[in-house]
């Protein structure tokens, strides 16, 4: 594992030396701005929006459609190039013929993806000190912390899934589309399925609700740090990474 820092530095270099990182960050900054506007607006009319006063994080991040839309688009964009591009340009050949193991390569690419993902959340954090110190709105720090943890484990899972699809193809678009479809299933379709099941009063509705990422993150935003959810995120993440290593290894046996 001693090669991981070197590999990681290159991945991050490739990302942050290009224009891509800043374009995506810019888009997130705009989205954060819109959400923050909405939050301040809601907070200045406390009588009308009781619930959001109680959970500002829910209004600001975890229940915002704009936030989810941008995450669903940005994560596939970040992860699609990680391995697919190396396959397309052929640099994978030089990478896999060095005394570096597949696990090291996968781990450092995943770490790079997670760091990029976390960088995307920074614009959302930028506004909060203003709310706290400038506007003297002393919101609870607990939910902020649990939301941070939840979004991180969710991101680790999402990036691992994106990395797996990136390893499967040499076409970045294909990798991005597959990643988007799977993330969309996890976030939106589970939610719709839950509503459908709940209306039928089916027993499985509760199980689907547990799997719905939207519901999970909303709970984090309300300050519920559910360790079962974190365990779920981490085990999906580890499984996807394991599959990615296996995909790279079987690539030799083509």
């Amino acid at each position, binding site marked *: 594992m001693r090669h991981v820092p070197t590999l990681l530095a290159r991945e991050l270099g490739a990302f942050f030396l*290009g224009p891509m990182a800043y374009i995506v960050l810019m888009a997130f900054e705009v989205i954060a701005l819109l959400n923050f506007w909405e939050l301040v607006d809601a907070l200045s009319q406390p009588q009308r929006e009781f619930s959001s006063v109680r959970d500002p994080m829910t209004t600001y991040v975890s229940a915002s459609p704009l936030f989810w839309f941008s995450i669903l688009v940005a994560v596939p964009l970040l992860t699609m190039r990680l391995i697919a591009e190396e396959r397309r340009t052929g640099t994978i050949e030089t990478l896999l013929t060095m005394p570096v193991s597949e696990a090291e390569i996968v781990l450092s690419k995943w770490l790079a993806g997670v760091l990029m993902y976390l960088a995307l959340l920074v614009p959302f954090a930028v506004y909060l000190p203003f709310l706290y110190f400038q506007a003297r709105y002393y919101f609870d720090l607990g939910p902020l912390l649990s939301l941070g943890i939840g979004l991180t484990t969710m991101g680790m899972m999402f990036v691992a899934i994106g990395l797996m699809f990136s390893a499967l193809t040499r076409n970045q678009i294909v990798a991005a589309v597959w990643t988007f479809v799977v993330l969309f299933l996890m976030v939106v379709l589970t939610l719709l399925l839950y509503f459908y099941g709940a209306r039928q009063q089916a027993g499985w509705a509760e199980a689907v609700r547990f799997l719905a990422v939207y519901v999970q993150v909303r709970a984090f935003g309300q300050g519920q740090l559910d360790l079962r959810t974190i365990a779920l995120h981490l085990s999906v993440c580890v499984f996807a990474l394991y599959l990615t290593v296996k995909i790279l290894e079987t690539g030799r046996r083509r």
Partner: protein
Amino acid sequence: MIQVERLTKQYGSVRAIEKISFGVGRGEIVGLLGPNGAGKTTTMRVLTTYLSPTSGRAVLAGHDVLDEPLAVRRKVGYLPENVPLYHEMRVKEYLRYRARLKDVPRSRRRLAISEVVSRCRLSDVEQRLLGHLSRGFRQRVGLAEAMVHDPDILILDEPTAGLDPIQIREVRNLIQELGDRHTILLSTHIMSEVEAVCGRVIIIARGRIAIDEKLERLRLEKAILVEARGPAESIRNVLAGIDGVRGVRITSRDAGISGFELQTHGGDDVREAVCQKLTTNGWILRSLELRRSSLEERFVEAVTGDGVAPSEVEAI
């Protein structure tokens, strides 16, 4: 240094290479020659552990490619075809990155990099972006990268493809210089390159080894062209029976006059024996010509499948 035994690689139902066996000793420069699609790149990819073989064994510097791939990779420097590079990195930065991944110790890293930079004459472009380099420089960066960890074995896939004549000469000189320290296996489909650089040549055709011979022995080999009047088949059988003749091929056949081409072992001159045999059988000898068989002829012969080299007969 390199030991390959009955190596086979299959892509689905296509056999890219089939039961090839050869060995390369320390300090040898061996050229892997063959037409496009003959299996050169596949062979090299198996040797560098990029692909795993379907069957057979390959041992490099004492390590098996399947059992100890990491140990093999540590001993091998590889220049892939078309030299894929990260375009956003700078030359020196890239070499430093590779040296680190290849476990060049920190204390030696700076020295190792400056040595390959000067050997490959890269000092003028040290700070340039890889994506902005010309083909020749990219090739040299690839070479520098392959040898930055001072490997025992260098595997170079078409090191001169796409270069201009001056660059080709430079790269060839470089490879020859490297021959004193490294064992080199290089692939090419340019015959003159093999003659200029290599000590030995392995010709691959349709996934099999057609010829594996020292270049000086190949140069010694002679072909004898015979033209005689008489029954073609019987003449051929008689000629094939002469000591030192490796193979006889009928090259032309019209109106009772036939042409033959004789391949001989290791430079035996059998012209007198040919003349004697023909006259004792009462056939008229019309012409007898000695010709050095050039590498190119041997190559064409091997690839078009007219001749089967003894090494391949053993392999089957």
